[in-house]
């Protein structure tokens, strides 16, 4: 027996060896934060996801930059620009002496090549479609510092589009290794990290003449797991968190109260909608409920939005009535008339439409019990909580609601292809304050017209009216006409409730106190919108 006891210390030793700390935190020499996924492409022209967009913002030099704060278009590589009166000619004057990060000169020829590359249908650049008929656009370069772009049709707020076109050296794409922006890609390990290095030949300087950006290197870790993100931030391994969840905000606020920031309502909305598609594989009576305005209004009335904001978002959300957030001051409609909220008014609305309460359940005029499911994506705790709160709010009306959470591909198949769902709860993130960017959502013919996609002709008169107003918004150069149009659309949506808006989630960020010069914005890329000016506290610049 004694021989056996000798084995115990060995096993203990083994465990201690494993228990040794995984890695000690290194002192920060590079600014680090995380992207949720790998960028799908590093070619700045092919950007079609959030991660790639952030990388393009940090590396790509652009003719014009949209100031994420003031929403003004500011000159960047172009020192000045103008549009002709008919809106068909855009002229850019480049700054003299511009260089790419490898030292080669940046002239109008490179600009023309980059713009043409983006407009080429073979590239498949998402921004191209916004030029309305990209193939017909022509670019000319009368001299090395001037670029003229001829448009076949007027494009409303055309300047903004150039914020999305990175100017690259002519020839095949360098995938961000040679750029005209603040940083260049020094190293990329798929699934692990992207390391960016400062572009020493970036054109911008601070008032004292020092070259921007101040930071030398940036590391963007590819980190799908939000938990680790937060832990690494607390440990000082990351200095920024782009978009915190309400739960993480509370957790971080307990340990690092000075590092968390609530910027107030974002431009994003969370909403539920009923499936009104004619081709949906649903029983006829359910389709009748969903097409019934009174039914949708009653559901909207019964939802206690203040509870959703307080409980599901821990107070970091704002109850929503329409699709334009109060933060979007230029377009928000302060006179929007919403249906009154409350369980008893909802009951009245339903009674008025022939629904009746029998015991604990609600019956429709034909006697079918009102029973449906709310579909949402798995893994978003706030959304799941909202769905559970709505479940109870609607139970007060006698509606029996089931919650179903699905992974994204399965969810999207139901929403976009098979239409096999009754009600969905999802969010819409808005990247552009101009409601013209929501054209695809409101036009009844669009596949993204969620409640009834790809209608051949508008199914209802009010959808026809929305179509008309949205077309006006898209075509008119007059800001007043555009505002009028979007106000009308907002009112129709409030009256008809095709989308039942729930909350505007607040924009939540975490920024390490080691940094200064961080200017957070609601618009993407939020926490690093002024990356050029961010620097370490105490660093001499």
């Amino acid at each position, binding site marked *: 027996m004694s021989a056996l006891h000798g084995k115990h210390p060995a096993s203990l030793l083994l465990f201690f060896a494993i228990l040794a700390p995984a890695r000690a935190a290194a002192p920060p020499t590079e600014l680090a934060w995380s992207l949720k996924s790998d960028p799908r492409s590093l070619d700045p022209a092919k950007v079609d996801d959030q991660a790639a967009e952030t990388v393009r913002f940090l590396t790509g030099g652009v003719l014009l930059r949209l100031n994420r704060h003031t929403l003004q278009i500011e000159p960047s590589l172009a020192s000045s620009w103008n549009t002709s009166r008919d809106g068909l000619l855009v002229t850019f004057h480049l700054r003299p002496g511009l260089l790419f990060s490898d030292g080669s000169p940046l002239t109008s020829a490179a600009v023309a090549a980059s713009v043409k590359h983006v407009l080429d249908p073979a590239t498949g650049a998402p921004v191209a479609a916004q030029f309305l008929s990209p193939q017909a656009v022509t670019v000319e370069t009368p001299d090395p510092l001037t670029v003229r772009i001829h448009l076949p049709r007027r494009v409303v707020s055309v300047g903004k589009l150039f914020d999305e076109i990175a100017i690259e050296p002519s020839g095949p794409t360098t995938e961000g290794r040679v750029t005209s922006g603040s940083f260049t890609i020094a190293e990329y390990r798929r699934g692990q990290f992207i390391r960016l290095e400062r572009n020493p030949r970036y054109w911008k300087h601070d008032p004292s003449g020092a070259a921007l950006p101040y930071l030398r290197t940036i590391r963007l870790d590819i980190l799908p797991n939000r938990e680790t993100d937060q*832990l690494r931030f607390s440990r000082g391994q990351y200095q920024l968190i782009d978009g915190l969840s309400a*739960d993480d905000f509370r*957790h971080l606020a307990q340990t690092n109260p000075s590092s968390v920031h609530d910027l107030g309502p974002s431009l994003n909305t969370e909403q539920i909608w009923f499936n009104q598609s004619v081709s949906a594989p649903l029983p006829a009576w359910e389709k009748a409920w969903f097409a019934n305005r009174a039914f949708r209004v009653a559901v909207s009335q019964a939802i206690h939005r203040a509870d959703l904001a*307080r409980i599901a978002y821990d107070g970091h959300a704002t109850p929503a009535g329409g699709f334009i957030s109060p933060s979007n001051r230029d377009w928000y409609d302060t006179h929007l008339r919403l249906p009154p909220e409350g369980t008893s008014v909802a009951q009245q609305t339903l009674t008025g439409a022939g629904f009746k309460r029998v015991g604990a359940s609600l019956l429709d005029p034909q006697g079918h019990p009102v029973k449906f*499911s709310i579909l949402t994506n798995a893994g978003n705790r706030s959304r799941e909580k909202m769905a559970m*709160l709505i479940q109870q709010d609607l139970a007060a009306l006698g509606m029996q609601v089931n919650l179903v959470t699905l992974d994204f591909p399965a969810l999207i198949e139901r929403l976009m292809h098979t239409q096999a769902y009754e009600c969905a709860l999802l969010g819409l993130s808005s990247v552009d304050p101009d409601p013209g960017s929501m054209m695809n959502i409101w036009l009844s013919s669009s596949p993204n017209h969620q409640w009834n996609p790809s209608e051949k002709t508008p199914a209802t008169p009010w959808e026809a009216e929305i179509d008309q107003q949205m077309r006006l918004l898209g075509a008119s150069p007059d800001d007043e006409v555009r505002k009028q149009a979007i106000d009308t659309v907002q009112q129709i949506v409030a009256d008809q409730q095709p989308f039942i808006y729930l909350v505007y989630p607040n924009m939540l960020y975490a920024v390490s106190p080691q940094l200064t010069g961080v200017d957070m914005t609601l618009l993407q890329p939020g926490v690093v919108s002024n990356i050029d000016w961010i620097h370490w506290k105490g660093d001499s610049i």
Partner: protein
Amino acid sequence: MRRAAIVLLCALVATAASVLLWSPTGYATQDREQISAPSSARHWIGTDDLGRDRSVRVAAALLLGLAGASAASALAATLAAIVGVSAAFAPKPLARALLYLCDLFLTLPWLFLLMTVRSALPLTLAPLQSAAVTFILLAVLGWPAYARVTCAGTLRIRNADWFLQARASGLHPGRVAIRHVMPHLRPLLVTQFLLCIPAFLVSEANLGTLALGISEPVPSWGAMLLSLEHASAFSGPAWVFLPIVLLIVVLLLLQLLVTEA
């Protein structure tokens, strides 16, 4: 020892049932003014993040989870025993085929089968029906890893001297298998049964992301365990650890119950 385990287990179930029966609020009732509240006279062990009474939810989850996971676990152990014992006694080609099937089963990504099953079920499936479907699926998919172990165990018995003697003295092979092999396999099967219970509880909750599992508002033990996968859970009230403590207690009691005195 064993009797004490039975008594304690019954007491646990009885307590859970009485909490569920006599509580003034249901497991789904949201007390929206008492979100994540600490212990109080109204809510003995506080409320969860939607203001639902934690004691009622834990009690309901315990009853449902215990019934579901032990049934599924028993089914999986039985399937493993049937396949393992058959493979050990069957003629060589059949035995090989069975083991081959186990291997194949282990390599396939069943996640997608679960997704397909879910898409074939109606979205308005009641939470309890969904729970039943999930536990059955878990049992049906959970056996192959254990079948190999059972097979190895049976082979050892088959080659043991006493067994050969029994066969030689003319006992019917089927009878031998039931009368003599099963008692020898029991400890192995019991261990498998115990190992499967926590695994199935957690798997049930994991399947929630595929819209299987116990759906809200019915409480799920597994989901309560999984909520500990978030760092923010550790900053909340200590009651969030109650489900895990109960699981430990239940596992210990079951162990006592099934181990031979």
